[in-house]
């Protein structure tokens, strides 16, 4: 059985299609990363999965239950840790977990042992009776995550779990997530826009952009699919620009070329053999290469190769308008 299964899932707000006909499934016990730039449809998808939004069409099954027809059972089987910390500041850590336990109908006689268990896991046992207002950002986040685990959900949804945290804390949170995964054997669905995070945590990654899933695979396969090397070069503008590209494509090791004005990114293998060939072609065409470099692909490069832009790239004005319209509709 799949933990998450969607078929042609679509959500539109008026004319704007936020999630466009996506179909994929996540196996039980997987850590699945959902990656995409702001406004790509990550949050909307997450809201559908957690029953906060109803899809316009298509189907989504969580832990075997339909989010439309059987929302109550979905809610019984999921944990949801939101992007913003949602713990009550004036309650103590333990009181926050007690509230969470009651919200999730944990049987009375189990509540205390469950709370002790998660407090131990996130290493907050010694601070449990202090008001959350005295906690650091990372501690609050850990408490929030603990709240999502308390009822041992089958699927745990983490929305940008490390956004706004410093690198050390971020690493710590990853450790906890991995620990949780091993200890409770739950499926974890995590959205992020940190490549490093996805690379570190996830068994598989889905890249979403413009409401559509661009690719789903393991981080390693994704990187391998690009060849194992990347050549970036900057050329001076020249009339022979197009024929240069045509010639480059003929080099057998080059798998893919991305073009951004005068900057070319070549996804390739056997980079050291390719570079001399590039120089040969460029001198034949009279093209001047300003800089050239050879690197190993990161998940960032994978992302760029599928979406055509960097994850934190400022989008064009046009897209910002769409985004604005969407937020307005969400609020209305």
């Amino acid at each position, binding site marked *: 059985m799949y933990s998450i299964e969607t078929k042609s899932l679509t959500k539109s707000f008026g004319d704007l299609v936020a999630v466009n006909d996506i179909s994929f499934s996540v196996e039980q016990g997987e850590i699945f990363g959902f990656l995409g730039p702001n406004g790509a449809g990550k949050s909307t998808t997450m809201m559908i999965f957690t029953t906060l939004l109803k899809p316009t069409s298509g189907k989504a099954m969580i832990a075997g239950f339909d989010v439309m027809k059987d929302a109550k059972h979905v809610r019984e089987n999921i944990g949801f840790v939101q992007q913003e910390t*949602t713990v009550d500041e004036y309650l103590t850590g333990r009181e926050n977990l007690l509230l969470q336990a009651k919200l999730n109908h944990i049987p009375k006689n189990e509540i205390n042992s469950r709370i002790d268990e998660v407090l131990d896991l996130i290493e907050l046992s010694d601070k449990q009776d202090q008001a959350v207002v005295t906690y650091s950002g990372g501690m609050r986040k850990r408490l929030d995550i603990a709240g999502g685990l308390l009822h041992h959900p089958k699927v745990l949804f983490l929305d940008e779990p490390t956004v706004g945290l410093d690198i050390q804390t971020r690493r710590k949170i990853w450790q906890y997530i991995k620990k949780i995964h091993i200890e409770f054997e739950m499926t974890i669905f995590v959205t992020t826009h940190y490549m490093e995070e996805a690379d570190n945590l996830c068994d598989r990654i889905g890249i979403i952009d413009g409401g559509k899933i661009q690719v789903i695979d393991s981080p390693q396969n994704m990187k391998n699919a690009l060849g194992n090397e990347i050549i970036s070069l900057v050329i001076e503008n020249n009339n022979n620009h197009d024929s240069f590209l045509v010639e480059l494509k003929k080099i057998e090791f080059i798998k893919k070329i991305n073009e951004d004005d005068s900057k070319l990114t070549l996804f390739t293998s056997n980079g050291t053999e390719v570079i001399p060939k590039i120089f040969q072609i460029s001198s034949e065409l009279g093209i001047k290469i300003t800089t050239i470099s050879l690197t190993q692909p990161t998940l960032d490069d994978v992302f760029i190769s599928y979406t055509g832009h960097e994850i934190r790239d400022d989008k064009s004005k046009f897209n910002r308008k769409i985004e604005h319209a969407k937020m307005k509709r969400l609020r209305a």
Partner: protein
Amino acid sequence: MNSVMYDTYTIFWRELKRYKKSRSGVLIRLIQPAIWIIVVGNIFSETQPLIQSVGFEGEYIEFMAPGVIILTAIFTSIFGGVNTLWDRRYGFMNKALTSPISRSAIALGKMSAISLIAALQASLIIGIALAIGVTFPNPLMIIPIMGIVILFSLGFSGISVTLAATAKSQETFWGMINLLGMPLFMLSPALFPLELLPNWLAVVAKLNPVTYTVLLVRELMTGVSEGGVPILISIAVIFAFVVAMVAIASYVFTREVNKPF
């Protein structure tokens, strides 16, 4: 049904915990009604002949004390729903909505907590009233009075939760609260007897549930029946008001929180 009760209690528990932790809030909420009873009660003490003309023998401050108790109940409960907006803004609402608890239990839990808090605040005002010399012919009457205050506040917390669930912003909410709170208080016999109102205003006042609550509490407190409204009618009006408001609030709340905020 059992689970709705449990869920309602969960939310009720959380709201009361938050109230308990905000000690300054308890005092701040007391200031306004305390000013009313101390300042206005004394300023208007010369109006005793006016209230005597309708058969009330005591001091003005004794006449208006029930009004101020109800004022406390009105404003504590009508403001009480504001944290619904915070909860939606800061994610607690989504947390609750993605857990298996029932939606109406969230509304019911909030309303019951608000009404209990309003009653606690009102009891503090009764304390102040006693301290400045207001007397109760029958101190045991405090028990039914508190019952009425809790019930009445439940109705007003319904108004508050309804407004908070539909308001998209703090500004809208506060605007609506101010629009409703003061007029409902003023258009009641809280400060002056109904008989002194011009006819058309008296008609409006008779449509106001606050009127019946003030009359009832005043009768229990001072033993003077005023305005010719029998106790049973007042109780019936309050009950109808509360049932209607709680139903509307649960319905509107459940409908509104399902929309994205």
